[in-house]
């Protein structure tokens, strides 16, 4: 049984009952959508459709419409891929790692963070696919018997590891998310009055009835999936970093990449969760469930992972000098002082300086400050990938090949388009799916709900029952 110290801020504010939780979460789904939802959805859809148009043009014409050149064969495409995969790391971390650590505050945010993860991984997965140029041959990455003799895909290649890592991550994430959703869909199904929603949610709920044996299985399945997903989260971004680390490009060929990338991924993922959650809690009236305490905890994660990233940047610099390898040293001097110094400077400011502000309690508990920093962090993390990829490539061993990378409007269109599509998915999720794991939140109501927490009859600290004067 979960016990919580009396002096801790409750996780559920106000005097909620089980029924109130159901009401609060189901109301936005059952009511008519507010006008702002339609406006936001419209904007996101237009941007997303523009992105799809750019992708169609790219596929029809060829990869040449991107700003890539002979020297820089990877630029915005892989930057965006790594950026989105990184963002897609928070959801599983919240629902899996924090479940193993028995962090109850995860319950208010895991559902939407996982949804965010899945949509982010969708967006990420699109980039390697369209980078193939001939999207319809994408299935060639699978080890299938084929007409070219018995030629198989190369299992020694980190790019193939990535295929397995990303597809496993996406599908396991989806399963984990859906298994948690089933009981909540059942709640919506049993409340639905109109026939069409009733039918839809009945199908989605898979006939869930809440039997004791089913809950017993549910809890074990969640635990085992969390146990499986935890190493998976760390492996996925490690493998993404192998795409670079196992190559022999100065600036990429470093052993620090896996932990550094994983920390960066969690860092940017939590920032994206903050961005979305701060808007969502307000728009959907969930302030009682997602409040300062949750925001503060997430800011602490951002601070810790941001510091790891900062240390990694400095270690990289030191090791490049210490290695004594001229090319390695040049790669880093060029990053900081070469023509891309502004990208490096943005990365350093956004990722190293800004999370350090979270040491100040007042700032990390400020919602507006958090919102600004969460966006700053994701800008910084995009620049990090851009710096790693483009500045390492743009000046290679042959100075006559040195060049700069200029994105074409298709580069920009595809990138901005994925942001649009991401929000299309997220807005649809917020409209039709329970954004809070409502049945999980009910399990902590008695131990961490404000009205129960220090009440004498349920209380864990009877003599302190008057101290809760918030």
């Amino acid at each position, binding site marked *: *049984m979960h016990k919580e110290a009396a002096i801790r801020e409750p996780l559920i504010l106000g005097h909620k*009952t*089980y*029924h109130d939780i*159901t009401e609060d979460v189901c109301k936005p789904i059952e009511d008519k959508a507010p006008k702002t939802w339609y406006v936001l959805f419209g904007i996101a859809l237009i941007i997303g459709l523009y992105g799809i148009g750019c992708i169609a043009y790219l596929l029809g014409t060829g990869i040449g419409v991107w700003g890539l050149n002979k020297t820089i064969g990877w630029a915005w495409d892989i930057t965006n891929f790594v950026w989105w995969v990184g963002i897609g790391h928070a959801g599983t971390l919240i629902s899996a790692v924090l479940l193993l650590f028995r962090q109850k505050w995860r319950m208010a945010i895991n559902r939407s963070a996982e949804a965010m993860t899945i949509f982010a991984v969708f967006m990420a997965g699109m980039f390697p696919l369209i980078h193939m140029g001939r999207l319809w041959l994408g299935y060639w990455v699978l*080890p299938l018997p084929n007409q070219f*003799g*018995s*030629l*198989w*895909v*190369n*299992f*020694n290649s980190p790019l*193939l590891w990535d295929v*397995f*890592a990303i*597809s*496993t991550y996406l*599908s*396991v994430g989806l399963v*984990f998310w859906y*298994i948690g959703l089933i*009981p909540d869909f*059942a*709640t919506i*199904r*049993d*409340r639905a009055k109109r026939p069409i929603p009733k039918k839809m949610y*009945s*199908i*989605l709920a*898979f*006939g*869930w*009835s*809440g*039997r*004791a*044996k*089913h*809950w*017993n*299985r*549910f809890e*074990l*399945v969640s635990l*085992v*999936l969390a146990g*499986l*997903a935890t*190493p*998976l989260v760390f*492996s996925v971004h490690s*493998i993404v970093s*192998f795409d670079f680390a196992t190559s022999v490009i100065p600036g990429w060929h470093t052993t620090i990449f896996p932990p550094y990338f994983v920390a960066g991924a969690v860092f940017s993922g939590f920032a994206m969760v903050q961005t979305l959650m701060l808007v969502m809690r307000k728009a959907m009236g969930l302030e009682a469930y997602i409040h300062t305490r949750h925001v503060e905890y997430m800011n602490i994660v951002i601070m810790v992972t941001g510091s790891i990233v900062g240390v990694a940047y400095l270690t990289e610099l030191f090791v490049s000098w210490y290695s004594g390898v001229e090319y390695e040293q040049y790669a880093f001097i060029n990053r900081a002082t070469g023509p891309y110094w502004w990208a490096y400077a943005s990365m350093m400011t956004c990722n190293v300086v800004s999370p350090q502000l979270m040491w100040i309690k007042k700032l990390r508990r400020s919602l507006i400050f958090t919102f600004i920093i969460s966006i700053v962090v994701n800008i910084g993390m995009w620049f990090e990938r851009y710096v790693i990829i483009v500045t390492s490539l743009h000046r290679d061993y042959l100075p006559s090949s040195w060049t700069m990378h200029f994105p074409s409007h298709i580069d920009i269109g595809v990138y901005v388009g994925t942001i649009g599509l991401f929000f299309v998915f997220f807005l649809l999720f917020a409209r039709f799916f329970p954004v809070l794991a409502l*049945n999980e939140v*009910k*399990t902590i109501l*008695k131990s961490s709900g404000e009205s129960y927490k220090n009440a004498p009859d349920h209380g864990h600290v009877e003599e302190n029952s008057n101290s809760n004067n918030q």
Partner: protein
Amino acid sequence: MADKVIYAMYDDDDVLKDGAKLLVSKGVKVSEVFSPFPIHGIDPIIGIKNTRLGIVAFLFAITGTLLATYGMKFFMISDWPMNIGGKPNATYMDNILAFIPITFEFTVLCAAHGMAITYLLRNKTIPGMPAQNPDPRTTDDRFVIELRQSENSQFSDEELVNLVQGTGIVELDQKEIK
């Protein structure tokens, strides 16, 4: 054969737990509990054994490991040994480090999906199944104990109802089922 079922409804999980304890101590067999969220500690009271899905997950995981190992040995060593930059490829063991990431991913893939599918099938929660909870409120804030007359033949109808009524219920429902 028709059977009589008693549904006793509670509005609090702890009251239900105490009620179930009381009923069981009197020798009543509680055949099912419906609740909106897992009631911790109810399983041993009403005699539900712990699930063995963990073992299932392990078996699927082992299958994944073996399949990945065998597959990569076949593709990369036996069927078409690829010589990439002169890297050793004569035996599986020479090359094993490069195969670990995919072996791991495939293990997780098989374990997670195998377990999830088994879970859904065992629960009989698959798309299109009708809901079986006795009252729509049991997915909101109500908790229901189900008693079957056939499993409690030592008690008469009234005795069962009287017993249940002493456990702090908020509603009582009786049904004939076939």
